[in-house]
């Protein structure tokens, strides 16, 4: 088997989420994955970039929610439904769900960082009785930047799922909390000594959220962080994504605060 060769599939549906974030639904399930693992998507002839699926591993289709930030995503956003796309994976390690069982699960997301957390949420919901309660704390810059608005009403109805949103800057219609995501972490209604906290978002959000969680008493080994690094090969060989001795693509993409806390500014 050639680990550098992608599987080709087609884009089944494109759902714009915000002005810069779009969900791409691929045809069928070209790769089998578990929540937390990622894949390298390629625009033919342009190149590859790493993304974590936002859909449930139990779903029929594979989805990615992606923000337009660089050369590859620019080309990706020019693709249309039925266009061909390459995918290589699954890569990396999944969330250690066994460590979450019989406990509360505290999920904190920021911006497009909610995409892999959605995959985790849907995985947890699939076996909801295995966990005590799932808390979701999500922050976006403005109400217009909130992703999965059309799904939130359904998630709110799920028993044992507690969702709280905030935006940095509100508008006339926004009735919810205003402030960066750490402002809705002032009250953490879980047993911080045993609860796993799962964080994904932009670097600054990750930094300050982690600080807040540590202050609140979460154990370093219970704070799971999605690391955004330059994962070129995705199989622990090319060396680009290394953080300390860890290859984010192979040992991650989720590492714990215990793994990275001694590294100078691990979120950049």
């Amino acid at each position: 088997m050639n680990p550098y060769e992608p599987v080709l599939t087609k884009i089944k549906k494109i759902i714009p989420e915000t002005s810069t974030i779009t969900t791409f639904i691929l045809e069928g399930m070209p790769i089998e994955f578990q929540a937390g693992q990622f894949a390298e998507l390629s625009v033919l002839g342009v190149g590859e970039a790493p993304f974590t699926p936002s859909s449930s591993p139990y779903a029929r289709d594979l989805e990615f929610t992606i923000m337009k930030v660089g050369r590859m995503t620019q080309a990706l956003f020019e693709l249309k439904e039925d266009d061909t796309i390459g995918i290589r994976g699954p890569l990396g390690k999944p969330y250690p769900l066994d460590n979450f069982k019989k406990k509360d699960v505290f999920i904190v997301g920021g911006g497009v960082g909610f995409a892999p957390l959605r995959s985790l949420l849907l995985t947890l919901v699939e076996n909801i009785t295995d966990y005590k309660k799932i808390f979701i704390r999500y922050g976006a810059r403005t109400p217009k930047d909130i992703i999965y608005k059309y799904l939130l009403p359904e998630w709110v109805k799920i028993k044992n799922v507690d969702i709280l949103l905030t935006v940095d800057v509100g508008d006339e219609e926004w009735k919810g909390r205003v402030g960066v995501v750490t402002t809705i972490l002032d009250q953490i209604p879980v047993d911080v000594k045993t609860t796993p906290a799962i964080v994904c978002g932009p670097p600054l959000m990750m930094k300050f959220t982690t600080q807040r969680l540590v202050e609140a008493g979460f154990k370093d080994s219970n704070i799971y962080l999605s690391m955004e690094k330059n994962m070129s090969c995705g199989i622990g060989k090319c060396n680009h994504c290394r953080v300390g001795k860890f290859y984010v693509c192979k040992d991650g993409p989720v590492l714990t605060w215990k793994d990275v806390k001694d590294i100078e500014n691990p979120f950049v």
Partner: protein
Amino acid sequence: MNLFLLPHKNLAEFIKRLSIKMRVFYPFSENGKNHIVEYKSGQQFSPDFTRVRTAENIKHFFFPSRDIVARFPTALNQRAKFQILIGVKNCDLRGIEVYDRVFLNWVPADNIYKERREKSIIISADCPEPQDTCFCNFVGLNPFASGISDVNLSVIKSGYLFEVFTENGQKLIRENQDLFNNADNEGINEREIIRKKALEKLENINKRRLTEKISELVEKADKNAVHNARDECVECFSCLYCCPTCYCFLLNDYKKSDNVERIRVWDACYYSAYARVGGGANPRSRIDERFWNRFQCKFNYFYQYEKFFACSGCGRCFVGCSAKIDIREVLGKL
């Protein structure tokens, strides 16, 4: 020991026979340097097995600077050619040792590297005349091989003393047994004396050997930015491209008629954009950070995984460095 003697007069015939089945490469001395050249039947054949490692390193044969690693939708069907490398020094075998860990042992294996490795035979050679830029002993190696290659040769008065390490090496000798004699004690003793002298010379050049403690020291140096690389390094990256243990690469996709070719090219961790992500964040934007990252990679992180340093002591980095930064001096100051 599995030792055989190839008399001087039989070398040319031995190489000629090998070249019938596979491409043969050997070290050839020109203008004071050894270079890797391909054996061509009928052309002059005058290898130099005693001079230090070749100017080029042998990673090109297994991990070329530019390599098509995938093609789609029409899958790649390239087959590696059989090849035999003769006269490889122990420092370059350290490079192979590193690559074997990264591309074969670390899951998933790299199928392209695996095929090239399986279709290659390596005959290493002792290094009896180390030069001032050599420091294999500094990183824990000897100036002669004791594994990794299939066979090792030592030049002695009566010919070439071959020591076999692998089944492939055994086969090589067996198929050409009419050219070999059994080694005698006199030849073996001569080899030991030559090796001892080489080691003594190296120990005069490099009086110390790195210990495992260097991993910790490098980590501390990184944090405290000891050694201001900005004052010296001109960012030519020569040290990285000529290094036999560096394995960083990038994957680039190019359209070629109806297909896309995925090309693997060597990369260098000193590039400012090396670790930058699509959104623009760059964990190592300063040369100091990148400079120490290289040392961390070779003397700390790799060591933590494999318990040996990802440095061969070949000295190419120092020879090629525009600013003449010597790894030994940098580490020696820690």
